[in-house]
Structure formats: structure tokens, C-alpha cells
């Protein structure tokens, strides 16, 4: 087994996903297959190889840090599932 039931529960919790029992069983099989396959890279001796952080083609070009026009508050809120007086609204965070 490349991934255990306890491990899958732990990563699901980290990723903020909840899994049903049958979903979990299928994922154990599918992720197990995928992880077994990607372990193929262990056949290579990589001790002397540097890690590529990205495609390593060009340096990242940062623009000057200056204020420019962006979204208006209305635009920023237009897709909010719940809003209240110009703010995003969420279930109560602070317990009494």
C-alpha cells in the first residue's frame, strides 16, 4: 500500500476536503496506483542534479511597485456568495 487510510484522511483535512467512505476507498486505490507509478523516478541517481524551480528560461520580471487603478469595491464584491455593507460575509468566526 503506497498510501494508508490514515494518511489519506490527514491530507484530505489539510486540503480542506471531506471524503465519503466509498470515495475514500476508490481514492486509496487510484492514488496508490499513481504513487506507485511516479516512484519510477527513484530509479535515477539524482544526488548530483540541481532542482529546476521552474522552466528556468528567463528571469522573473517584476514591475515597479506603484499604485495603479484596479478593481472597484463593487467589482471585487460582485462574485461574493455573501456580502454585507461592502464586506465579504462569512459564518461567525469568534465563538462567544
Amino acid at each position: 500500500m503506497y498510501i494508508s487510510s490514515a494518511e489519506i484522511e490527514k491530507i484530505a483535512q489539510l486540503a480542506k476536503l471531506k471524503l465519503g467512505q466509498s470515495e475514500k476507498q476508490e481514492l486509496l486505490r487510484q492514488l496508490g496506483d499513481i504513487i506507485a507509478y511516479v516512484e519510477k523516478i527513484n530509479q535515477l541517481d539524482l544526488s548530483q542534479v540541481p532542482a529546476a524551480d521552474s522552466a528556468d528560461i528567463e528571469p522573473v520580471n517584476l514591475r515597479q511597485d506603484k499604485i495603479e487603478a484596479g478593481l472597484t469595491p463593487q467589482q471585487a464584491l460582485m462574485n461574493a456568495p455573501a456580502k454585507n455593507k461592502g464586506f465579504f460575509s462569512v459564518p461567525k468566526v469568534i465563538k462567544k
Partner: protein
Amino acid sequence: MNFEGLDYLAIRRLIFQRKASCRQLTNHYLSQIDAAKKFNAFISVLKKYALTSAELLDQRLQKSDAGPLAGLVIAVKDNINFRDSLSTCGSKILANYVSPYNATVIEKLLNADAIVIGKTNMDEFGMGSSGENSFFGPVKNPLDPNRAAGGSSAGSAVAVAASLSTAALGSDTGGSIRQPAAFCGVVGLKPTYGRVSRFGLVAFASSLEEIGPITKSVADAAAILEVIAGHDTKDATSARQPVKNYSDIIRARSRKIRIGLPREYFVAEVTPEIKTAILEVVKKLEQQGAEVEWISLPHTEFAIAAYYIIAAAEASSNLARYDGVRYGFRSDGSQDIEQMYLNSRSDGFGEEVKRRILLGTFVLSSGYYENYYRRAQKVRHLIHLDFKAAFQQCDCLIAPTVPTTAFFLGEKIRDPLQMYLSDVFTVPANLAGIPAMSVPCGTDSNGLPIGLQIMADHFNEETLLQTGNAVESIVKQCKLH
């Protein structure tokens, strides 16, 4: 006026010679889209917007005041933001998301007078190789509706293949432009990493993906690329490399070209008919003066493993933003914020997206990071070096785009690993960041299109397009198409 089967350059001539109007053209595509609903290529059709744009453009054409892409009616993958229209990414979690801004590629297309006709269906967030992983239902291949159109830019490839638009934009993270282009018999170009701004492209795996055109001809791909390419201050990864006039370059007579055939791409897993079709075209190129040699890309067999570790890791990070707070789907009735996150993400994401988020979280988690993610980055470096060495010997590489032609819908959907393996020849270009293009290369005995892939060194799109143009002429002459 019959526009059926015409590429953009042919349509452009009709428009500029006033033999057809943009309104006629747009109406033609709108009725084609209506008649082709069974392929499920579009998530939204912008009928009113497209017709209004066409009328305004017709007035400007009368005054000879039209941009370089006038007469281009383009379909756009639904992960590219277009202001005031839906951008769903094929996901329930963004099913009602209306974009408040334009992606840079959209700004550039509109400035050049292209008309956006609609947003195309896709595998959710670009995760899939068959067009089946969409909340809005599977996309069907117009050449055989029982077969997959490829993925993830499935709707974009179908729009072009079935003449529902003049051309389309797709995005390619591991083959998502080239593989559906191959399955549907059209041209698909993934530019060099950084060549085209990704500002406004919804992120899946930021170190791998690129926006590019899907078209009926190589010349059309050149015409669109020269408009959408170039540095953009809104995308820190966009390159400052100069953009050439690709349309002129492909018309120029190409110098003697050196073509490499990577042995690892002509292995037993490739359908014999595909190998034969591609090698036949290469033989013709050789007769026309190209130098051809077999070369090796020795780490090819490790590309899929490295790709699925890196892409999943980046996806797990990029998709953390969907939390039901600022935009997107929120599950009703959660008692506290933790439950709201859990319920919104679990109900909003589809199976494949959850699978990749979990895989990505696993390979990045403490105790596994060094063994998986770090090692995958090292393999990525080796793949990059393979290509660098190859381009010392030759100007471009020719290989199959996919080992098979279009598979059946449902054939691989329960076996994600088998689905991933269909990307074996497309992911290396993303890992190395090099440009690559799929060009139609005839059909197999079932009448299904074969894709020939050309790969070139970083920022060498001109060699890609020149070679693609030569391949296209050979295929047409041989009536392989």
C-alpha cells in the same frame, strides 16, 4: 456565402475584399453552433455581443479602419477571463463566476478587432485528457461522437474542427492544446513558456502552462501568435524577448533545416499507422532538402512521473483560493467557517480535481516533499538538459503528438493513471518550457486524425511555424488529410 472549411486567411480576404461581411460571418457561426449542440463545445455563446461587435466592425471596414485580426471570430477556452461574461473553468465551483476584467490576451485580440463568439467547454480547471471532466458534461469528437475530443481544451478544438468559429484559444499545461488538436484534426500551438501573457488565465500549474491558438492552418496560428505574444507587466513570468512577424516568416523560403527524430517517441506503444504516417512526411521533407537524424531524449520515460508530481503540487496550492468566501460556490447551511470551507470545496470540485489536490498535498507534505516534489524538480532539470543537447544537433524535433488516435468516451475515465499516460509525448515540452505544435498528418484506417508534433528550442517559434507550414503542404499534396 459559404464559409465552411475556410481558414482565417481565406476568410480575411473575403472580408477585406467586401465579398462578405463580419455580420454574415458571425451569423454563419451562430447557426453552426446551434446545429452542433450535440458536441457540447460551448459553455456560453455570446450572441448579442458578437453580433454587435460584427456590425461595428463592418462600419469601420467601410472606412478602411480595421485591425489586423478583422474577420477572426474566435472561441475562447472558459479558463480565460473575458469581462462581463462567465468564466467557469468547467467547474461547479465557478459555475456562476462573471469576470470583472479581461485577460491580456483578450485585450490584445479585441484591440486587433477579433470578435469573441463564446467560451468553450473544458476539463475542469484544465485537468483531463478527454474533455469528459466538465461539470457541464463531456465534449464529443465531431468526427465520431462516441469518441473523446481530447483535453483539456476540448471545446476549443471542436469549435475549430466543426467550423463553429474561425479559430480558438486554448491553454496547455501538459498537452491541453496539442492533444485535442491532434484528436480533432486541427493545428494546436503551445508557445514558449513566457511568450504569451497569462494575466487573466485561471491558474492550475503556473510553472507549466501557456496560452496558445487552435486553428485550421499553420498560417492562422502565426497570425494569432504575433498578436497575442509579447511582454506584459501584469505577468512577472512573461518574457522580454522580441516578437517577430510570424506571418511573414512562414512565407519566406526556409533555410536547410535539420530535423531530429527522438527514438523514445517512436516506441512500441505508438500505433504503427501513426509512426508510418509521420515517417512518410519526414521522408518527403528529406527529399525537399531537410537533414534528418535519429536522436535520443533519454529521460522521456520519467516525464509523466515528474509532471504529475509537479502539476498536482502546484494545483493543490493554486486551488486553495476556492474557499467560498470571495467568489465561487458556497455550500448552504454550514455552522462555522471550517465547515463552510470543507463543504464548499467538497461539493464544488469534481472528482479529478479532488484527486489532484490530494496528490499534490501528499507530495508536498512533511516527510514526502524531498522524496517526491524535490526529486521531480531534479528530473525536470534532466529533461530540460535532454532538449538542450538535442537542439545542439538539430533545429527542431518531429514526433507523434499522442501515441494513439482519439479513444472512446468512457474508455479511461475510471483509470486515471491510464488517462495520464496518454500525455506521454506532450508533457516533456511543458517541463522544459519549449514551444511545440501539433499539425494534422492524415488519418488512420478508422478515419481518425493523426497529429504530428514539432518541438523547437525556447523562443524559436519561427522554426516551428516554418516546419509546420512545410508539413502542412506535404500532407495536402499527398491528400493524406
